[in-house]
């Protein structure tokens, strides 16, 4: 298949893809889809897939076996969706190889095995199996980015196109000026999903305004935080969505230089995005003179290797340029001087993935979702002992309580909620009584908490506040790039004090030293890492002060975690 030469050629191609998609779902064969992503591979999805392949190979079941991406319900992996002719598709969870033959046998006998079903993809329940969208995990979600997650094959551009993909890019490219695209994004009030929540449209506009060329547009898929795994899931499950967003970004900046910087550990995300790029080149959606429009765009994929700091904007750009990924002072901002000293627009993976829907449906449509100042939907992950662990997509503004106890199903049996850490290593926790706060960009901040990239960690009373604070600060200490003194020396000092307290050698004045040292680190550090490194500690100290005091005055750790040794510790 050659490059598509113009819009008509694309429409024809899309019509064929849609036709095939229709035929697949309305045919007289079984359609069996297996979710293959890093999270399900870890639980044996590849074995499940091979087992199904084997069972289908004898020809007793006229079936098509498909690969799909992660649908967010990590807790039910590996999952298999089966559609029998004339029936709605049913999603089965926990489908390890040992259950596969049972399930197929049952289905051939006409039994549905409702006890293994997560739900049926239909408007309402069907033969005793509830509708999938009524599942507690999905009921309150609002899925835009994950709409096709677990439905399309992430490695098939045809699946993406058959379900409406690349229409937003075509609309931008062929019907809108770059200014109109930027205006639409401004109207949507979309704010950056990478942590800081800066308005995307304004960033794009600044990038356009800087009179220097060439310009660069970069996706930040580094995701090195210890508390979140949404970007890689998105890339694994729908890489073309991110690519389409990037293409629209390049068009808005009138540049042919697009990049995606992906953390080297995210092997599958990397592979699938690379494949998406290759497919787009083959079809002529990337390359020179796209669809005869005169617009050209080239996307390069770059990777890093295990340095959290490379997620920071300026560090990331140095990393792409083959230098050590260390931040620099600002100004100039990246939109003025970024990659190769040229104006560079950097946005998070999820930010780019939100763009196609905005272009398709309009900025004001998007702005009506979420709250006034935090529009749209957000991917969130919840870690810790919750029932429905996975990736969810919610409208911003949902109360934290609902997020934890409804969407993520609350704590598993035997665990008692103690707190929820927000903003990863960049902010503090919330206690039970604060959970009515809405999850958005602004409401959490006055409480010392933060939406950040959307990764939350629920912890129970087997976790010690002092020890957990130590973990979070130690993460920043380890990842400090060492360029500036307050962070390089300040974070180890905090860890040392915390270790002293953990070992039972804390002094009452330590709490003042913590506050004093923290202020210095926050005020004087060069980049975001140092500027927020003490936040988790300050938050823990404020919320669980009594535990810190207990450690110091009574040498007691109520969670029974801290070592409380007879001799003072030596700093590691």
């Amino acid at each position, binding site marked *: 298949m050659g490059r598509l030469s113009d819009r008509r050629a694309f429409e024809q191609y899309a019509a064929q893809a849609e036709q095939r998609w229709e035929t697949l779902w309305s045919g007289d064969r079984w359609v069996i889809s297996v979710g293959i992503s890093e*999270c399900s591979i870890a639980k044996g999805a590849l074995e499940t897939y091979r087992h199904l392949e084997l069972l289908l190979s004898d020809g007793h079941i006229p079936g098509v076996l498909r690969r799909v991406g992660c649908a967010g319900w990590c807790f039910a992996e590996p999952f298999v969706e089966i559609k029998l002719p004339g029936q709605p598709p049913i999603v089965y969870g926990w489908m390890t190889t040992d259950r596969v033959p049972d399930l197929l046998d049952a289905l051939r006998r006409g039994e549905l095995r409702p006890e293994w079903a997560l739900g049926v993809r239909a408007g309402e329940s069907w033969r005793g199996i509830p509708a999938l969208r009524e599942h507690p995990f999905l009921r309150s979600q609002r899925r835009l980015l994950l709409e096709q997650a677990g439905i399309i094959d992430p490695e098939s551009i045809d699946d993406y196109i058959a379900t409406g993909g690349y229409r937003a890019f075509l609309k931008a490219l062929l019907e809108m000026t770059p200014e109109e695209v930027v205006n639409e994004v401004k109207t949507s009030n979309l704010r950056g999903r990478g942590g800081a929540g800066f308005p995307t449209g304004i960033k794009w506009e600044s990038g356009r305004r800087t009179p220097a060329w060439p310009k660069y547009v970069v996706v930040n898929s580094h995701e090195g935080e210890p508390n979140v795994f949404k970007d890689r899931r998105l890339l694994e499950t729908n890489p073309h969505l991110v690519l389409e967003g990037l293409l629209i970004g390049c068009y808005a900046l009138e540049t042919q230089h697009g990049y995606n910087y992906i953390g080297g550990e995210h092997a599958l995300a990397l592979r699938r995005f690379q494949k998406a790029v290759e497919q787009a080149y083959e079809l002529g959606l990337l390359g020179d003179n796209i669809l005869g429009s005169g617009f050209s765009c080239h996307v390069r994929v770059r990777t890093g290797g295990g340095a959290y700091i490379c997620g920071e904007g300026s560090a990331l750009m140095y990393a792409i340029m083959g230098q050590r990924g260390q931040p620099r002072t600002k100004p100039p901002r990246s939109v003025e001087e970024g990659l190769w000293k040229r104006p560079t627009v950097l946005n998070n993976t999820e930010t780019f993935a939100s763009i196609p829907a905005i272009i398709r449906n309009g900025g004001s449509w998007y702005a009506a979702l979420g709250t006034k100042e935090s529009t749209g939907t957000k991917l969130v992950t919840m870690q810790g002992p919750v029932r429905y662990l996975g990736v969810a997509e919610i409208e911003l503004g949902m109360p934290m309580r609902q997020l934890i106890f409804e969407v993520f199903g609350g704590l598993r049996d035997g665990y008692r909620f103690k707190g929820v850490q927000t903003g990863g290593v960049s902010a503090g926790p919330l206690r039970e009584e604060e959970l009515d706060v809405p999850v958005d960009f602004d409401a959490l901040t006055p409480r010392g908490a933060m939406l950040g990239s959307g990764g939350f960690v629920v912890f129970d009373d087997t976790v010690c506040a002092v020890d957990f604070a130590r973990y979070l600060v130690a993460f920043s200490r380890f990842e400090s790039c060492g360029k500036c003194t307050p962070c390089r020396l300040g974070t180890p000092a905090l860890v040392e004090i915390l270790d002293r307290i953990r070992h039972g050698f804390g002094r009452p004045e330590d709490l003042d030293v913590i506050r004093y040292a923290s202020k210095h680190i926050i005020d004087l550090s060069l980049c975001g890492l140092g500027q927020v490194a003490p936040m988790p500690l300050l938050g823990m100290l404020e919320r669980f002060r009594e535990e810190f005091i207990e450690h110091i005055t009574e040498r007691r750790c109520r969670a029974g975690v801290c070592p409380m040794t007879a001799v003072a510790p030596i700093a590691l």
Partner: protein
Amino acid sequence: MKPTKAGQTVDLEPLRRVLEERFRPRDYREAQELVVGACQEAQRLFGWVPPEAAQLIAEHLGVTTNRIYGLLTFYADFRTEPPGRHFLWICHGAACYVAGAGRLVEFLHERYGITGQGTTPDGALTVHVFNGCLGVCDLAPVAQLDHHEYVGLLSLERLQALIAELQGEAQTEAADGSTE
């Protein structure tokens, strides 16, 4: 992954081929952008980045070896020494931490003196404490073995058993190797 044993001569041919096929910068800028990727290729091929490979990459891309080592020592994932026969990532992300990974990491330190990464004295196993989330928090605390297999819901006992098993395996492998 095929780890190269220390002292063994490194066959650079596969790396040379990959470089010539896939690392063909059009200008100096692009050459610099490709350095990290080339090092990753080398590590994929050899299990670490041997000095000879660093040299070859430097020559191929027209940068200094200094520059290469600047990067190799900056990123946690690169190894400038050959790893053990097996490679284990212990996840030290937040989910794994609240599920008890801290005890596992402490154990590695006490038993083998490993803080960030290190190899057991018998060369059987390189352990790397992964400062981030492996993305399969459902299995916390979790480890990833030889870059593909996950071992989840680790307790201290399970980790010890796993290490013992890998050490035993490595011994047999070593014995097999010497009879070849």
